[in-house]
C-alpha cells in the first residue's frame, strides 16, 4: 500500500525491538470479545488511478452550469489562481493548530492579519481565528450575547436572517431551557420596526439582524439600533455575503455591537456548502468572552516581534465545561484563503468588486422585469441579490433554465410561504452580460401562464 512505509525486513526489525512476533500481538489490550473477527465488509484497496476515476465519475454526475443565478448564502465569485497555489503549500495545508509558536509563526501571523482584516471589514475591534460557518457563527454570537447580558434570556431574531441560520439557532438554543428565541417579522423585505419595538423588553439580550438580509435587502442598522440599544440590548449584525462589506458601511460603524456571518465569498467556491468560513467580531469590551482561538502579538526573549495563541483562559482545553465555546479545530485554511484574497483585492479590489456585483444585480433585475411574467416586490436597497415575483409556472421556468445549463434563483416559497411564487436572484462579477441575456432569452421562451 503506497501510503504505508512497510517492508518485510524493516517491519521485522520494528517488531523485534518491541518484542512481539506479530503486529496483532499488540492488540492484546483490546479484550478478545470486543474485537472484530472478520474483515470489514468493504471493497479492498485501490490504486490512485482507480480512485481518481471513481471521483471523476462522481463529479461528472453533478450538473455543470454556464451560470448560476443562485446565491442564498453560497456565492459564486472569481477565485484568483494565487489563492489555490498558495494554500497548496504543505506548510499551510498540513500543519495543525499553532501550539508551538516558534515553528508556527506562519500560521500565527496569518491569523493575526486575518483578525485585523475582519475587524476592518466589520468596523469592530476584536475577532478570532474563525468559526465553522455563517450559521454556527450566529449561534456563537447569540450565546455570547446572552453570556454578556447576564440576566437577559431572550434573543430576538429577524425573519430576514438566513432560514438555515435560524434553524441552527433553534437547534442550539433548544437544550437551554432558560433561553428563548423570538422571531421579529419582516415588512417589505426588511425587519419590521413596529414588531421589533413590540418585542423589545428588559429580557432581550440581543437582536440579530441580516445585513444585508436573506432577501438581499439592506437593513438600516442605524435606525434599528436606536430602539435596541435603548432597550439595553445588543445589536448583532449577521452577514451571509461578506463581499457586501465593499458596498455597505462596516456594521460596527452603524450600530452593531457584534458582527458575524459567512465569509466564504472571500476566495472560496460554492463547494456544495462547505468548507466555509464563519467570522465574528466584537467591541473590545467583549474580547474575553469571544469563542475560539485568538492570536496576539508579543515578543520573544530577544525582543523580536512574534505571535502566539492568547486569551486561552476562555477556551475548552483550560476551562472545560465553563469555556466560552467548545470549538477546537476551526476553518483555518479557509481563513487563509480569505486573507490571501483580501490582500490581493486590497481596498480598490473590494470596492470595485462590490460595485460590479451591485451593477450586475441591478442590470439583471432591470432585464428580468422586462419579462411580462416578472413582477417587482416592494423594492429596498440591495447588494447582489433581490426578490421578484414570478407569475409563471415555476417548474416550467426551472426546466427551461436547465435546458440551457442555467441555474435559476431560489424558489422562496419553501422558506417563506409569504413569498410563494417569488424567486431570489443573485448576480456577481462572474455573470457576464451575455449570461444575463441568455437567461432573459430563456425565460422569455417559457410558455406563458394560462
Amino acid at each position: 500500500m503506497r501510503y504505508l512505509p512497510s517492508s518485510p525486513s524493516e517491519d521485522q526489525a520494528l517488531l523485534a525491538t518491541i518484542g512481539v512476533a506479530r503486529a496483532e500481538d499488540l492488540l492484546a489490550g483490546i479484550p478478545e470479545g470486543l474485537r472484530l473477527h472478520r474483515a470489514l465488509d468493504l471493497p479492498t484497496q485501490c490504486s490512485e488511478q482507480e480512485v481518481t476515476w471513481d471521483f471523476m465519475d462522481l463529479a461528472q454526475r453533478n450538473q455543470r452550469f454556464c451560470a448560476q443565478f443562485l446565491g442564498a448564502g453560497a456565492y459564486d465569485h472569481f477565485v484568483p489562481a494565487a489563492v489555490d497555489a498558495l494554500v497548496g503549500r504543505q506548510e499551510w495545508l498540513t500543519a495543525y493548530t499553532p501550539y508551538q509558536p516558534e515553528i508556527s509563526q506562519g500560521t500565527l501571523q496569518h491569523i493575526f492579519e486575518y483578525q485585523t482584516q475582519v475587524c476592518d471589514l466589520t468596523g469592530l475591534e476584536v475577532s478570532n481565528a474563525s468559526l465553522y460557518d455563517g450559521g454556527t457563527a450566529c449561534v456563537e454570537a447569540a450565546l455570547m450575547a446572552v453570556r454578556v447580558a447576564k440576566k437577559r434570556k431572550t434573543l430576538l431574531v429577524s425573519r430576514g436572517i438566513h432560514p438555515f441560520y435560524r434553524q441552527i439557532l433553534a437547534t442550539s438554543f433548544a437544550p437551554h431551557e432558560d433561553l428563548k428565541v423570538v422571531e421579529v417579522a419582516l415588512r417589505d423585505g426588511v425587519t419590521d420596526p413596529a414588531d421589533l419595538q413590540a418585542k423589545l423588553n428588559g429580557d432581550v439580550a440581543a437582536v440579530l439582524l441580516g445585513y444585508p438580509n436573506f432577501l438581499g435587502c439592506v437593513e438600516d442598522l442605524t435606525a434599528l439600533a436606536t430602539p435596541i440599544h435603548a432597550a439595553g440590548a445588543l445589536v448583532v449584525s449577521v452577514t451571509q455575503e461578506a463581499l457586501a462589506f465593499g458596498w455597505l458601511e462596516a456594521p460596527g460603524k452603524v450600530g452593531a455591537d457584534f458582527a458575524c456571518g459567512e465569509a466564504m465569498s472571500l476566495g472560496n467556491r460554492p463547494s456544495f456548502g462547505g468548507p466555509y468560513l464563519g467570522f465574528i467580531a466584537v467591541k473590545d469590551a467583549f474580547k474575553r468572552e469571544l469563542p475560539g482561538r485568538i492570536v496576539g502579538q508579543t515578543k520573544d526573549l530577544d525582543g523580536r516581534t512574534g505571535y502566539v495563541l492568547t486569551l486561552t483562559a476562555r477556551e475548552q482545553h483550560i476551562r472545560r465545561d465553563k469555556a466560552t465555546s467548545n470549538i477546537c479545530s476551526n476553518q483555518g485554511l479557509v481563513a487563509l484563503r480569505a486573507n490571501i484574497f483580501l490582500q490581493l483585492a486590497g481596498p480598490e479590489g473590494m470596492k470595485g468588486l462590490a460595485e460590479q456585483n451591485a451593477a450586475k444585480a441591478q442590470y439583471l433585475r432591470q432585464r428580468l422585469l422586462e419579462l411580462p411574467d416578472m413582477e417587482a416586490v416592494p423594492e429596498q436597497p440591495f447588494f447582489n441579490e433581490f426578490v421578484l415575483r414570478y407569475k409563471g409556472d415555476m417548474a416550467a421556468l426551472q426546466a427551461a433554465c436547465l435546458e440551457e445549463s442555467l441555474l435559476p434563483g431560489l424558489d422562496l416559497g419553501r422558506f417563506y410561504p409569504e413569498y410563494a411564487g417569488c424567486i431570489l436572484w443573485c448576480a456577481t462579477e462572474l455573470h457576464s452580460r451575455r449570461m444575463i441575456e441568455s437567461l432573459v432569452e430563456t425565460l422569455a421562451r417559457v410558455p406563458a401562464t394560462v
Partner: protein
Amino acid sequence: MFLRQRETLSFDRSVPGKRGMDLPKLDVPAARDTRPAHLKRGGFAALPELSEVEVIRHFTRLSKWNYGLEDGMYPLGSCTMKHNPRVNEKVAALAGFTDSHPMAPDALVQGNLELIYTLQEWLKEITGLPGVTLQPSAGANGEMTGIMLIRAYHLAKGSHRRVILIPDSGHGTNPASAAMAGFEVVELPSRPDGTISFEDVTDPVNGRVRKGLQTLVSELGTEIAGAMITNPNTTGVFEFRFKEISDLLHSVGALVYMDGANMNALVGVARPGDFGVDVMHLNLHKSFSTPHGGGGPGAGPVCCIQAMIPFLPVPVVVRATEKVGEGEVARHSYHWDWNQPQSIGKVHTFYGNFGVLVRALAYCFSHGSDGLREATLRAIVNANYVRARLKHAFALHIESPSLHEVVFSDSNQARHGVHTLDIAKRLIDHGYHPPTIYFPLIVPGALMIEPTESEGKDELDAYCDALLEIAREVEENPDALHQAPTQAPLRRMDETTAARKPVLRWAKA
C-alpha cells in the same frame, strides 16, 4: 531558509496605489447608488495595497516559518498527523464538486449525494453503527451534536436527564460540548492505569474522595443522560472494561458516547457499535487523513444506533433504487429528506464541510478494507516502537499496553529541573515538531507521541534519536535546555504579556 529577516506584517508594507487584482471590464451599466448615505461604505484601514507578486511572496515567506507534515514527522498525540495524500486534494478540487451549489435541486447534484451516501456507508461499517450524519464541522461540533441526540432520545422517551459523565482524562471539548448541549458535567476519576475507575478514588495529595463510576451510577441513576468516553483513552490505552461500563450505564437507561478522536487505533480491528457504544463522532481530519490546514477545516461525522436515527440533523440523504429486471445492474437515485419530525434540526448551515468529506472518501477508497486494517496495525506498531526505544529514558507514567500513541511523563527529567516544555522546545532545535504536551492532564508533564502509520523506521529512529540525545543533555547540561529553542526563527515567546495586554490586531502607527 534564505529568509533570516522577519517577514513584516503586510499592512506595514502597503503602498497607496499598488494593486494585486484587476477587475474585469464592466459590461453592464455602472451601479446606481441606491444606498442610504449613511450605509455607504467608507474607507478600509487594514486592507494592504500590494502587487500580486508581493502578496505571493508574503505568503510564501510566511509559510516557511511553519513546519508541515511534509517536512517530517509531526507526532502530535491525539491529532493523528498522518500523510495527507495529494490525490485527495486533486479530486476534491474537481470543478464538478467545487462549483456545485448547496441549494441546487437534488437531481442536479446526484454525484454529491451519492458521495455522501457512500461515505456514510463506509463509516457505518467501520463503526458498526447504523446511523450517520456528516454535518458536524469538526470533532467538537460532532460531540455537541451527539450529546444533543442523547438529549433528544431521552426527551422522546419523556425523560429529562441532566448529567453527562466525563472522565478526567477526557479532552476539553468533551465537557465544553456537553455544557453547550445543556448538560451538567460530572467528572469520572481515572485509575492509576488511566482507565475509568469503577471504584471511588482518594486523591493522594489532598485526601479528597472522588466518586467512581459505580457510585455515580447508583447515586445519580436516571439523572444520567450518558457518558462521554474516549476509547482508546487519551493515554492511548483501550478501556478494557468498556463492555462493563456500557452495560452499567445502559442499566440506568443512560447512553454511551464515544469520542472517536483515537479511532486510528481501532479501524478494522474493533467496532464501537460492537462493544457497547451508542453514539460517537469521528474526526475525518485525524483518522481519515484530511489535512489539518493550520487549524481546520475538519469534519466530525456522528454515528449512532438505530434508536437514535430519528433525531439526526436534517436533511438526511436517501437512496431510491429503480426496479430492474433480473441480472441488470440496479440504478440508484438520491435525494435529501427534510421531513424528519424528530430531528434535532441543523448543526451546519448546509451539509457539513463537504470538501473534507470528498477527501475522506478518497482515503477510504484508496485503503479499502484491507488497507484500513493494515494502517491501524502499522500505527500501533509505530507507537509501540517509539515506546520501546524511549521507555528507558522517559518515564511511562502508565504501563498499560499502548495502542496508537504513547504518553511519557517528564518525571525522570524533572529531577534535573527540566520539564516537558523544555524537551519540546529542544526538539524544535533538532528539526522536529514536538509531540502534544501537558495533555492528558492526568499524566504529569505529559509528552504524548502519536507517530501514525505514515512513518517509516528511518523517521521514527531519527525522532527517537533526537529525544534520546535530549535525555542525555538533560543529564549533562540541564540548564541549556531552558534556553531552547535556539535554532528556530524565534526564541520563547512572552505569552504572559500577550494575555495581559492583548494586541489582537494591527493598527496604523
